């Protein structure tokens, strides 16, 4: 994790990335960069991170061979990286913990965060409770409505959830509001951004904290199967779980990397270069440069932008990106429930559908690792609604 080539000093992955933020935040970003560089060089920081990853989050999460799912499909073997078993039920906790420890080092005791599905909000609220920090989470009213349980969880954990009713009232607007809060309270506040998006150093830092997923998966593959997988499949909204599992495999050129977007918020599949939330990346926008409102059944994928490193991986051809519809994601969701007794979140259900589709066309000796980035308890109401069950 600690040695890397990209981003460059200015925070660019090729033409993607950068720091497109109001002047007020430029010093804060420089301070964050310095603090993170110091933390990177400090073994005790990583000792504490690793120790909490193990004892608090429950890492390493299992690498689980989905035998019945693979049999039902009758092609390649599918192995699940069980991030759904991490504390709080999704991979988001890895980054929240890392940044929480960093904020404490920086002496910042007020944390603001955005959330879409609520998973990052819950993870942030959890870490703030653990580290005794004030926590404010911005969430679009649309998402508050469809992720009630996570709103309640955040409140139980002591966070204040602030509804955002501007724009499309989803993740994009929650980020706008979190940035406005950060601009206003920058001297005392750390913005705990939840994905590999935003201005430098966030895409790098979040990737580094999340790359524990890929490092574990790589070691587990070698230890259990004495080989690397042929494919890695992960869902992409902002792209943190995908970047986390892809990153340690970037130099393993035999391993194909596939990111799965939601059909109506597929920045990489159909977006055009643009600047949103401080970074230059593929972006869903109209011909006048206004950012599009997106829609996905999975609130965590409902974002018109994407992490700049994914744009870089797309352009270089190192990773491939595809899109899956709401209905297809629901099919993936049900398939995993029925065959494995695992209720997945709707976000990775997109990846499940695509992994199954991919497996079907491959011989039995091929191996696909699918990042099961979160569990589905939070989505039961949405799924019930979609299935016509009330």
């Amino acid at each position: 994790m600690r040695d890397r080539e990209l981003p460059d000093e200015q925070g660019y992955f090729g033409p993607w990335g950068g720091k497109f933020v109001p002047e007020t935040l430029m010093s804060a970003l420089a301070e964050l960069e310095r603090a993170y560089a110091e933390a990177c060089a400090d073994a005790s920081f990583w000792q504490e991170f690793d120790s909490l990853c193990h004892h608090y989050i429950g890492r390493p999460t299992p690498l689980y061979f989905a035998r019945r799912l693979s049999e039902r499909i009758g092609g390649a073997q599918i192995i699940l990286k069980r991030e759904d078993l991490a504390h709080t039920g999704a991979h988001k906790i890895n980054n929240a913990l890392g940044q929480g420890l960093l904020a404490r080092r920086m002496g910042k005791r007020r944390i603001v965060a955005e959330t879409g599905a609520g998973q990052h909000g819950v993870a942030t609220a959890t870490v703030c409770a653990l580290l005794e920090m004030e926590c404010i989470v911005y969430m679009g009213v649309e998402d508050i409505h469809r992720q009630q349980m996570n709103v309640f969880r955040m409140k139980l954990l002591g966070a204040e959830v602030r509804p955002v009713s501007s724009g499309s009232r989803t993740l994009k607007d929650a980020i706008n509001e979190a940035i406005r809060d950060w601009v206003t309270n920058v001297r005392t506040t750390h913005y705990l951004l939840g994905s590999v998006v935003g201005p430098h150093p966030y895409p790098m830092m979040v990737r580094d904290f999340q790359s524990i997923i890929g490092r574990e998966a790589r070691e587990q593959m070698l230890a259990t199967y004495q080989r690397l997988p042929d494919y890695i499949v992960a869902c992409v909204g902002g792209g943190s779980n995908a970047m986390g599992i892809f990153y340690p495999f970037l130099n393993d050129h035999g391993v194909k990397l596939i990111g799965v977007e939601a059909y109506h918020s597929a920045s990489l599949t159909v977006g055009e270069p643009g600047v949103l939330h401080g970074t230059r990346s593929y972006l869903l926008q109209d011909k006048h440069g206004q950012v599009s409102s997106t829609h996905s059944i999975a609130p965590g994928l409902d974002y018109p932008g994407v992490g700049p490193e994914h744009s870089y991986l797309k352009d270089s051809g190192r990773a491939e990106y595809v899109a899956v519809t709401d209905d297809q994601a629901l099919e993936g969701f049900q398939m995993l429930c029925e065959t494995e007794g695992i209720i997945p979140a709707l976000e990775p259900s997109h990846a499940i559908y695509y992994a199954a589709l991919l497996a079907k066309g491959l011989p039995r000796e091929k191996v696909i690792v699918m990042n099961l980035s979160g569990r589905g308890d939070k989505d039961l109401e949405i799924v019930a609604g979609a299935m016509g069950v009330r």
Partner: protein
Amino acid sequence: MSRIEQVFADKNHKALIAYVTVGYPSLAATLEIVPVLASSGCDIVELGIPFSDPLADGPTIQRASYEALQQGVTPEICLEVARKLRHLVNIPLIFMGYYNPVLRYGPEPFCSKCAEVGIDGLIIPDLPPEEGAELEGLAQRQGIDLIYLLAPTSDDIRIKLVAERTRGFIYLVSITGTTGVRGALPEDLESFVAKVRARTRRPLCVGFGISTPAQARRVSSVADGIIVGSRIIELIEEDGTLANLRAFIGRLRKEIG
């Protein structure tokens, strides 16, 4: 000397800069409001290009931006409005807008079109000098001033960087925060202005949160100009005849000298 720089040529004259969102409440209104601003004593008008995600703006300008977009205002339409205004007023006109619409239009055609319709300057709040090199070069080639901002959080290195790279003036953001009317300006505003003043000879204009004649007087006693935005939007909303706006601008003009 650019048209914007000429505004600051007389050191005893403090610049009064007004912001309006193009197309709010309507395109016809913008064509009426800007001449009123000019004739009541404004030295420069900032024309806001509406954007879907105005993250440096508070509720008032967010609302204006949203409504303008609802009415179909695009960068192309803003350019056409600027062209018409250029025939109606003589004062410098500046576009204030976020970077993505400029990027989408194409920085090069955007700058040449700006020059063609008579735009004098650009303020792009999400484009710090680190990211601005390309637009800066293109703007300069067209004789347009790209105006950079400084904030209370900017350190000496950043002050030096912005002072070297800005054209026209430096936009000092009075507070850490978004645009919008506030009860009080920060106590350390004077020392912030003085800190920048000690490091550059560029004109310094202060914006964000200035809404009353008393605030205007206080700021103009240390700065070379003041920028008023959200309060102007509010006055336009309160009184469509623009009489209140005219009176307000007249009052500010008197206060700042």
